[in-house]
């Protein structure tokens, strides 16, 4: 029992932090209420440190204590999640009840513990991050199901209450939450049924057991159906094509800080679970001549599953990019770009682990891309949330259309340049982080022999160049629209800090790309019984 607990220290820390934040949130004194965010931050940092220190990885993971398919996945994932969560926290979705807080200060309105939901927002934030870390550590279908639900339920609420003051934004937020919740529930039902079928086919919900039964007994029809249903269900989380319809409306409806959260957390949860499912059903390891070659070379996923992934990847990339071309609203552009990026990551998934060296390993490429995407995306959403404009009825509403961010480098350089750099990095422009993230996708797909997919990937990055260029051009080159209302920076300094930190990371991380790629390669490395296989040849960890 105790070794199972070793997995959960970070989640426990988050849980405690969530409760503390909730209590702090309803304290009568405004000062303590404002501390809620600080406590949340402390919680995330603690979780990060605990994850770094306590999570067992590599050979330490035994069959009983966790899933041995991708043993060191949990360590890399949890630490990465903690870092990006910290950045997301900086977005500080403070617009939730700013008017109310202001009214309270003026004494117009008495503080009513029941009505305020500022601190609850942070607790939901922490619960969702906890769910995400649980997904990373999941080794059982039930655990995985619960973790996925724990990740998404808080997000439904965050979307609903993130509308902030003002009639019109609140209405839009509620519409977004409706769509998100109901379609989310549909998705959940689908993958639950898939899990059920998987259990039915193999008789156990433990991932290692299922893996063993599938590899020995072969993938039966029921198991395959279960797999397909669960993959399609999870596609909702990563906004892959058939299930992508909610994304633009939700990202536009919710406030940009929440949209940033949605762009990272459910997507990571989805991809981690897909990785677990795929490694459960395929990728059996055999130490190869120069490192590990997967039996049947990379494409050991059962053929139908591979075709499914292939079609979803191609469609997601293309539809995501193509629909983003004519959008007028920056939020919708970023929504479609997040769909497109899911498509890119699916390519890595199809490429499979290869021989374990970084550039042949699709799984490592996906993990590395997830982290880089998280960092880049926070920058763009931070910029959006950092700006607001006075609407007709005097309320401060958050900006939406591309006209609002024209000439940002001139008016608000601290927000303009991060948007410029992050959009270039999302485009995959060479010196920035995005390029180094996309390059392994190219190389792993080529080594897996998916030439057509590489061509589609190349074409899509060319199409994507167009709307990222529009963002880059709007921010850097065009003059701000005189007619539009005066766009001012929102009072929350932390959002500008988040934007600048993310822009700095996009540039600075290039230097440590070597170390990062090694970390993601280790994360994707299989569990190798020390006795059975020879030590990994020197060139492997080159």
């Amino acid at each position, binding site marked *: 029992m105790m070794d199972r607990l070793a997995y959960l220290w970070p989640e426990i820390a988050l849980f405690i932090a969530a409760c503390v934040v909730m209590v702090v949130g309803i304290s009568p004194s405004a000062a303590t209420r404002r501390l809620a965010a600080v406590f949340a931050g402390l919680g995330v940092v603690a979780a990060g440190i605990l994850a770094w220190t306590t999570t067992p990885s590599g050979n330490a993971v035994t069959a009983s204590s966790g899933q041995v398919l991708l043993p060191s996945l949990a360590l890399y994932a949890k630490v990465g999640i903690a870092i990006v969560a910290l950045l997301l926290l900086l977005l500080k979705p403070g617009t939730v009840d700013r008017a109310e807080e202001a009214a309270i200060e003026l004494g117009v309105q008495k503080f009513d513990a029941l009505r305020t939901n500022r601190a609850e927002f942070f607790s939901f934030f922490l619960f969702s991050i906890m769910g995400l870390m649980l997904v990373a550590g999941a080794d059982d279908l039930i655990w995985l199901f619960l973790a996925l639900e724990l990740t998404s339920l808080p997000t439904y609420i965050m979307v609903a209450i993130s509308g902030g003051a003002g009639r019109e934004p609140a209405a839009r937020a509620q519409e977004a939450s409706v769509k998100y919740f109901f379609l989310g529930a549909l998705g959940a039902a689908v993958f639950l049924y898939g899990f059920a079928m998987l259990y039915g086919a193999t008789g156990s919900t433990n991932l290692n057991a299922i893996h063993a039964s599938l590899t020995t007994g072969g993938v039966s029809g029921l198991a395959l159906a279960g797999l397909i249903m669960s993959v399609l269900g999870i596609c909702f989380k990563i906004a892959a094509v058939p299930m992508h319809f909610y994304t633009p409306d939700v990202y536009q409806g919710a406030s940009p800080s929440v949209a940033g959260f949605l762009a990272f957390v459910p997507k990571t949860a989805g991809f981690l679970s897909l990785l677990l499912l795929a490694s459960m059903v395929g990728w059996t390891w055999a130490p190869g001549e120069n490192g590990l070659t997967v039996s049947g070379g990379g494409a050991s996923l059962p053929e139908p599953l591979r075709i499914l992934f292939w079609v979803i990847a191609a469609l997601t990339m293309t539809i995501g990019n193509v629909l983003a071309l004519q959008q007028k609203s920056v939020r919708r552009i970023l929504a479609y770009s997040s769909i497109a990026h899911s498509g890119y990551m699916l390519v890595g998934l199809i490429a499979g682990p290869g021989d374990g060296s970084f550039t042949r390993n699709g799984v490592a490429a996906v993990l590395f891309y997830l982290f880089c995407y998280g960092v880049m995306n926070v920058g763009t959403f931070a910029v959006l949330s950092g700006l607001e404009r006075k609407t007709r009825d005097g309320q401060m509403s958050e900006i939406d259309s591309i006209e609002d961010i024209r000439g940002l480098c001139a008016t608000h350089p601290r927000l303009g340049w991060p948007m410029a750099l992050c959009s270039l990095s999302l485009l995959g*422009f060479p010196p920035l982080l995005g390029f180094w993230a996309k390059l392994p996708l190219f*190389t792993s797909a*080529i*080594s897996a022999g998916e030439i057509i997919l590489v061509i589609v990937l190349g074409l899509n990055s*060319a199409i994507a*160049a167009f709307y990222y260029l529009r963002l880059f051009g709007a921010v850097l080159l065009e003059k701000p629209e005189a007619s539009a209302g005066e766009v001012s920076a929102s009072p929350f300094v932390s959002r500008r800090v988040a934007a600048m930190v993310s822009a700095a990371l996009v540039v600075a991380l290039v230097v440590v790309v070597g170390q990062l790629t090694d970390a993601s390669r280790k994360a994707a490395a299989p569990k190798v019984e020390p006795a059975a296989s020879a030590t990994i040849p020197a060139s492997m960890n080159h």
Partner: protein
Amino acid sequence: MMLAVLILIPLAAAVMVAVAPASRARSIAMVGMLGVAVMAGYLLFSFDWEHTAAQQFALDEESSRLVPSLGVSLSMSVDSISMMLVALTALLGPICVAASKTAITERLKTYYAWMLVLQSAMLGVFCARDMIFFYTCFEFTLIPMYIMISLWGSTNRKKAAAKFFLYTFTGSVIALAGIVYVAWSYADRHGMWTFDADTLMRWSRSLPAATQGWVLGALLLGFAVKVPLFPFHTWLPLAHTEAPTAGSVILAGVLLKLGTYGLVRFAMPFAPAAFVGHAPFIAAVCVVGILYGGLICWVQTDVKKLVAYSSVAHLGFCVLGLASCNVMGVTGSILYMINHGLSTGALFLLIGMVYERYHTRSMKELGGLAAKMPVWSTFMVFFAMASVGLPGLNGFVSEFMCLFGAFQASDQWGAGMWGTAAGQTPGATPGHLGAWVAAIAGTGMVVAAMYLLYMVGKVVWGPLVEPAGHSSHGADAHGHGSHEHGGLPRDLTGREIGVLVPLAALCIVLGVYPSPVIKALKDPVALTTDEVVNFGKARMAMPLVPPANVVPAGHQEGDPHGAGEPAPAHAVESKETAR
């Protein structure tokens, strides 16, 4: 180490410009550019001219390692080909800054900062020996140019800038795919990733001809968009008409050379068998480009568009020289890169000067400026003659060598009707081009005369025609008051003449006494042509004596049969090519 300094100077200057107040932007930019010029001069001075084929000033291995797992390193080194182009870039830098004194009046800081960034990116391209570093700099030149065109362009600059960026970006993504494919196949065989140019060259040479065909296709497509070769040239006239003067000078002077430099430095050695096989196709595209571009020039009304299309025609010659795969042709094309940079750059400067005075580029509104601007007309006639290829000026030397290279490169000289009884034609080299290609391309020289004289005849000679707002009242005797706003007197100012004189001097010197440059290019060109024609046997055969100032770069780690740095030039005597 010195190359890293060379590339960092403009970047540092760019940062200083960004920080400094707008008023001092231009002077800092000039200091930065002059710093680059001085550094380039020092490099030229300390370059070991005996071993021109050797990669000199190379960074030592350890400090340049960037992404070990991908084998990407910041390895930089330069041989005489790159040295020449670095010198050209260093020369055009200060000229552009000086030329844009009156043209650019608002957002000075952005303009000069991005021009300095562009300068360092271009220098990076010429010094890069690592494919990813080359690709990064190659891509990075797009941003500054995009900004320059879309901020200081004229009417539909947005469309021109977007088309320029997307067209070149797509092209270079395809080139990247080619490079990555080669790197992957190397890693597949050797288990270890590297993007070092020499290693990949040696490896991709040994690939079967079919795969080489694909690699060449990808690289050729990527660089053809940049050169621009015939079907991919439509972005150039648009970009030129919309770019500011200095932007056009740099675009024509150096950016187009990235494409041809890429072809000679990477496309040819990477896929020698495919290149020789497809040489006739490439030559055909060039010849079409020459005549097609030339004839279109002839019917243009916008002077800048005319000179832009003339660049398409001229670079057709340049790549034709490459397609001939012999020393004459390749030396001619490298010389052509330099000469085209000088003469077309100067033409754009001249057009810019007229644009600053009369704010029009249409040949309908301008005419007979010799009466009003004699000094400008002298320079215009001079540089038109240089670019039409008048012997005695630089254009002729390179144009003749390219044509003669194409003429020479044919197997027909040995046999059949063309052959000789003794079967021995000393002047011939193996290849598939020959007399007809040179003859048709030669008509390009006539077409060049047609459109350039049409332009000079319309703009310089003939009765005086001035745009509506500027015509000083009739043929008044003393023409003192000049109506041109922008405070520019009628004829060229001292600054403008100062900008043009160095270019003119170089045109004459390179035209009358080009032999030192030809001698300097001899070895690297011999190496490249040898690599293309007989797949680098010469390089293999070279003994391992590193020249003086090359930091012993040592073998590419883990590459068993690497022959290390190519050795002194005199050992390079490619075999008897004539049969």
